């Protein structure tokens, strides 16, 4: 059971949240080539370690936010707002 700290409601059980996949994925411009689109649509970093990801407190306040979570230990290392840049301590790990 993950215990996720919602920025507004505090720490709640995983079952109140919806997982939204990787954060910091930028949609390419319409004129981009096929390789760029393929990468945007399908390629995933899928790290064994720190993963920056989107979550929504769907059965609570409804807000979307980002967290940095270790996919091997499930430790939640940082919670930050949607739209904030990649936290520098996690480098280029979007």
């Amino acid at each position, binding site marked *: 059971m993950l215990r996720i700290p919602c920025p507004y409601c505090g720490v709640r059980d995983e079952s109140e949240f919806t997982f939204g996949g990787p954060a910091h994925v930028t949609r390419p411009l319409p004129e981009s080539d096929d390789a760029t689109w393929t990468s945007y649509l399908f390629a995933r970093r899928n790290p064994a370690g720190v993963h920056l*990801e989107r979550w929504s407190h769907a059965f609570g306040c409804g807000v979307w936010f980002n967290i940095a*979570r270790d996919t091997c230990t499930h430790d939640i290392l940082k919670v930050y707002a949607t739209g904030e840049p990649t936290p520098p301590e996690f480098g280029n790990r979007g």
Partner: protein
Amino acid sequence: MQRYSALKLAGLALRGNHGWQPAWRDAEPKSTYDVLVIGGGGHGLATAYYLARKHGVRNVAVLERGAIGLGNSGRNTQVVRSNYFYPASCAFYDHSLKLYEGLSSELNFNVMLSQRGVLNLAHSEHDLEMQRRWCNAIRMSAVDSEMLSPAEIQKLVPPLSFRGRHPILGGFIQRRAGICRHDAVVWGYARAASALGVDIIQNCEVLGFQIEGDRLHGVRTNRGTISANRAVMSVAGYSSQLAGLAGLPLQITTMALQAMVTEPIKPVLDTMVISSLVHAYVSQSDRGEIVIGGGADAYNSYAQRGGLPLQRSVIGAVVELFPSFSRLRLMRQWAGRVDITPDTSPIMGLTPIEGLFINCGWGTGGFKAIPAGGDTMADTVATGKPHPLIAGFDMKRFQTGALIDEGAAAGVAH
């Protein structure tokens, strides 16, 4: 290789069971091989076996980071079936099922295949409509499948409750499908491959690839550098990391898929039952345990442990279907790392690097594909061209858009 038979069993039993030899050779790495198979799970060992037996390529090593068969090959729920939706999948998985049907005698190792039938339940008129379509699609691919009425289902599976929250309006069954002892498949392939001269090297982790231009020359491991012009990556649950070492991005998300077993009880369930609506599937093992599985946890995970909320929902669904199981105690619960692709079909075949081949992305259903995965990958490595059965599973499909979307037929929600 010591041949196994009833006579041999009786003979050695009379001599106090002292004459048994190890089933396979735990080899030391040599400096050069013709083909390296990275990953000592079912797929890797089967690839090595078919390379040696069908293609005469015997200077082969299987490199396994830990011990063979301890990853997903030993963590799945043993289901073998070929009732997929699209012709490409049906053809591939039915080839696998046919190989499973002859596997015990081919490997001289009892893999305990039990073709007890896999039954999918329909809980609404819409479910039933979709299942009729699905069932017809399977039959069009020349795979056996038939619709069952509620009365037929009740007769086939007496402990199933028809008074649960979701009524049972029918279902369809593949009678040739069933379960098969997973450890026996791993050990059978390892033993047969080893007997043909394949080196099975355990505790040997690949740390990097030696690539010049776009050509593979060898791999770096924790036990030294090994040269080879051809290598197959077959490391479910670690595919993104290994492919990353070769600079190949993959279309995979790794998640935890959990399973659990109850305490053993007397035979009560001789069919494998799946309900896609409530996300649960149930069978009874030969030891008498009720084997339970369900959906994958929703988020990326390499932890090999499942989350409690999903476990609760799966057990809730099973108890609704089989109220008599409610008093059983759970004995074990575990999870495997499953590599989910966007269309839940595998990624198999050639890579942009010459000599480097890939077999991954099996998601929640790699066990049933072991014989065909090994057979077709061995053929692909030996000929340098994708085997016709796997041509559609090439990684280029994500660029061309020719996806084989088996999200529904995967049988597991993710």
